[in-house]
C-alpha cells in the first residue's frame, strides 16, 4: 500500500497569524484551505473567496415552498373542498400568508442544509485525507491550520514548508493518503464509505434498539389506561340474567311514590272536564309574542284537522273524521280551562291528548290563539269602534 502526498499543512497559534498566512498563501497558490476551531472574521477576504452560492439554493427552495403552499391552499379551498369560513371568500389571500410564510421558511432552511451537505460537502463521500491526522485534532481544538494541496500548479513541498516557516508556523506536517482509496472516475479519496457494511449494520441495530425501547416504555412500562369508566361501571349487560347491583337482581330502584319528574307538572283533572273548566285559570299574558307562539303551535299540531282558521276543514281528505268548527256557539262559550282540558286530555275518543307534544305554556298559548280565531269571525260591537 503506497502512500502519496496529499498536502502540506501548517499550524498557527493565533487568528491574526492565520489571516496573515492565508493572505500570503493566496498570493501564490490557488488550491488551499484553512481550518479554524471557530469562524474567524475577515477570513473570506483573506482567502480571496467569492461569496457563497448557497444563497441561491435557499432562494430556490424558499420560492418552491411559497409556490407549493399557495397552490395547495388555493386548490383545496376553491376546488377540492370549498368551505365558508367566517363569511370570507374561498380564495382569501391574507389567511394564506402565515402558512405560506411557514412553508417558505421551512423549505428554505431544510433545503439549504441539505444542499450544503449533499452538493457542497458531497455527502455520500464524507471521507477526506485530513481526517484522523494530528493536524485535524489540533484545528478542531485550539490551533489554526492551513494546507496547500499537492495538485496545485505551483506546488513544491519544500517551498510551501519554507513559506509556512517564514510566516511563523508552530508546526508543519505532510498529509498523506492511500492510493487504494482513490476512486478511479472521480477525484475523491475514499477511505471510509458511508454505505460500508459495518456502518449500515450499526445504524440498523441502533434503529431496532431505540424503537424497541420506545415501544416497551410507552406501551408497557408507562402505559396509562385511557378514559374508560363506561366500560367498567356497574350496569346490566344485554341478555345477562341478573344484575349484582341489588340483592333482588334488579339494576335500579323504583322512584319513591309521588315523585315528580323535573320540568313536569302532573295534570289532576284527567277525565274531569267540568272540574277543569271550573278551576283552571289561564295564567298566561296575552302578548304578541305569546300569540305568535300559539299560532306556530296551532298551525303545527291543530290545523291538520281543525284547519288553519279552526273551521273544521281538515286537510286530511277524509282519512280521519272532521272535527266540529271551533266557531260554534258552544265552543265560544267554553271557558279557557275547558279548552285547555280538551287539548291536554283529548275528547270523544277521537281527538287524542296533546300533553306530550305541547308543554303547559304552549297549550295556554294555543288557547289564547283559538280565542283570537273565534273573535276574528264573531267580532263584538266594541271591536268596530
Amino acid at each position, binding site marked *: 500500500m503506497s502512500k502519496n502526498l496529499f498536502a502540506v499543512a501548517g499550524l498557527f497559534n493565533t487568528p*491574526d497569524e492565520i489571516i496573515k498566512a492565508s493572505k500570503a498563501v493566496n498570493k501564490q497558490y490557488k488550491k488551499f484551505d484553512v481550518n479554524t476551531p471557530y469562524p474567524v*472574521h*475577515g477570513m*473570506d*477576504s483573506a482567502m480571496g473567496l467569492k*461569496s457563497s452560492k448557497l*444563497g441561491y439554493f435557499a432562494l430556490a427552495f424558499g420560492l418552491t415552498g411559497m409556490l407549493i403552499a399557495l397552490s395547495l391552499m388555493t386548490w383545496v379551498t376553491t376546488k377540492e373542498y370549498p368551505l365558508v369560513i*367566517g*363569511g370570507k371568500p374561498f380564495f382569501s389571500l*391574507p*389567511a394564506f*400568508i*402565515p402558512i405560506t410564510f411557514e412553508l417558505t421558511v421551512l423549505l428554505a432552511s431544510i433545503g439549504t442544509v441539505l444542499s450544503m451537505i449533499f452538493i457542497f460537502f458531497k455527502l455520500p463521500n464524507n471521507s477526506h485525507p485530513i481526517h484522523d491526522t494530528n493536524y485535524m485534532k489540533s484545528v478542531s481544538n485550539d490551533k489554526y491550520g492551513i494546507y496547500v494541496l499537492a495538485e496545485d500548479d505551483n506546488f513544491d513541498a519544500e517551498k510551501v514548508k519554507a513559506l509556512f516557516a517564514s510566516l511563523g508556523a508552530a508546526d508543519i506536517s505532510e498529509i498523506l493518503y492511500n492510493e487504494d482509496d482513490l476512486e478511479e472516475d472521480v477525484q475523491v479519496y475514499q477511505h471510509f464509505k458511508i454505505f460500508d457494511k459495518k456502518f449500515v449494520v450499526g445504524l440498523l441495530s441502533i434503529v431496532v434498539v431505540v424503537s424497541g425501547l420506545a415501544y416497551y416504555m410507552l406501551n408497557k412500562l408507562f402505559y396509562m389506561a385511557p378514559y374508560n369508566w363506561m366500560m367498567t361501571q356497574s350496569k346490566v349487560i344485554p341478555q345477562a340474567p341478573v344484575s349484582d347491583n341489588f340483592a333482588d337482581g334488579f339494576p335500579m330502584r323504583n322512584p319513591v311514590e309521588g315523585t315528580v319528574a323535573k320540568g313536569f307538572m302532573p295534570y289532576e283533572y284527567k277525565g274531569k272536564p267540568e272540574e277543569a273548566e271550573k278551576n283552571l285559570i289561564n295564567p298566561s299574558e296575552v302578548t304578541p309574542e305569546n300569540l305568535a307562539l300559539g299560532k306556530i303551535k296551532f298551525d303545527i299540531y291543530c290545523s291538520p284537522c281543525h284547519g288553519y282558521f279552526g273551521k273544521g276543514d281538515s286537510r286530511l281528505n277524509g282519512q280521519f273524521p272532521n272535527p266540529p268548527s271551533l266557531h260554534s256557539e258552544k265552543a265560544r262559550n267554553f271557558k279557557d280551562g275547558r279548552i285547555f282540558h280538551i287539548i291536554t286530555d283529548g275528547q270523544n275518543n277521537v281527538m287524542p291528548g296533546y300533553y306530550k307534544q305541547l308543554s303547559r305554556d304552549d297549550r295556554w298559548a294555543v288557547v289564547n290563539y283559538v280565542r283570537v280565531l273565534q273573535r276574528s269571525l264573531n267580532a263584538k260591537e266594541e271591536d268596530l269602534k
Partner: protein
Amino acid sequence: MSSKIEYTKQPIPANWTKIGMILTVLGLALVGASFAMDSTRATFNSILGMMFIISIGLGALFTIGIEYLAGAVWSTPYRRVAEILASVVLIVPIFAIPGLIKMHDVFHWSHAEALQDAILKNKSAYLNTTFFIVRMVAVFIIWIVFYFIFTKNSEKQDITKDQKLTKRNIKFSALFMPLFAISLTIMAVDWMMSLEPHWFSTIYGVYYFAGTFLTGLSFITIIAISLNERGLLVKGLGEDHYYSLGAMMFAFVNFWAYIAFSQYLLIWYANLPEETYWFINRYEGSWAYVSYGLVFVHFVIPYIILLPQPAKKDPKRLKLAAFILIFAHIYDLYWLIMPTYTKQHGIEGMVFSFYEIAFPVLIIGVVMVWFGIMSKNKNLVPIGDPKLQQAIDFHL
C-alpha cells in the same frame, strides 16, 4: 491589531447646508401657501410633518440607547452621527404648534359636543384637551432630557476617555427604553390614532415604532456613508462596517411588514365593524391603490434590494434602499393620516398636491441645516469610546 485611531475634525460638506437652506425656504413657502389656501388640510399635513420629524429624531435617539443597552460594537463609529441627528428632538415641538392651534379642525374629540357621543364620553378621561397637552409636554421633556444626558456623557468622553461615562450611559439607556416605548406609543396614539377616535388598534404604537426606527436608521445610513466616502469619519471604515447597517435595515423592513400584516390580519379575520371601517376607508376609491402601493414601497421593493448579501455592503444600493425607506415612511404617514381628512370632508378617493409635499420638503431641509449647525463643534466620531477600536477592527 493595534493601530491608532486616526481622526481629524473636518467640517461637513458645505453644500449640504446650502441644499438644506434651499429646501427649507421652498418648504416654508409651500407651507405658508398651504395654510393660506386650506388651513385644515395644511394642519393635517403638519401632523404628518411632525410625526416624520419625530421619526428622524427618535429613531436616532433609539439607536443610541439600544447601542448602549445591548453593548453593540458595530454601531459605535456611527454613534456620533446618530447623536447629532437626535438633536432634532429639540425642534420637534415647533411642528406641534399648528396642530395645537387648529386642534378643533382635526381632532373632533376635542369639541364640546363630542361628550354627547357615548363612546367618546367614555374615552374622555384620556382624550381631553388638558391631558393631551400635559402628555405631549411630558413626552417632549423626556426626549430632550435623555438627548442631553446621552450626548453630554458621550462628548465628555471624547476628551476624558473615561470608561465610567459609558457605564453611566448604559444605566440611563436602561431607564430610557421603557420610557421610549411608552412615550412613542402615546404620541402615535394621541396624534394619529385619535384622528379617528372611535377606532382602536393595540399594535398601533409598535407599527409606528417600526417606521420610526427604519427612518432613523436610513438617515444614519445615508449620512454616515456619505461622510465616510468623503473621508470625514475615522480611517478604516468600509464595506464590512456598512454591512450591519444594511442587515439592520433589512431586519426592520421585515419587522414592519410583520407588524403591519399582523394588524391587518387580525382586523380582517375578526371582521368587527368597529375595527374594519378604518381599513375600509383606506380601501375606497383611489385609496385602494395607495394601500396596495404601501406594500410595495415599504416592503417588497426594499426587501428585494436588500436581500442579497453583497447589497448590504454596497454603499450605492444601501443609500438607494435608505432613500426608498425614508420615502416609504412619508408614504406610510400619508396613508395613516390623510384618509381621515378626505373622509371627514366628504372627498371621494385620495388627494395629492403641493400640500402633501410641503412638510416633508421643509423637514428634510430643516434637518440638513440643523445637522450642519449641531455638528459644527463636535467630532463626527466618538473618539473616546472604548469600543471604537474594536468596531474599526471588525471584519466580516
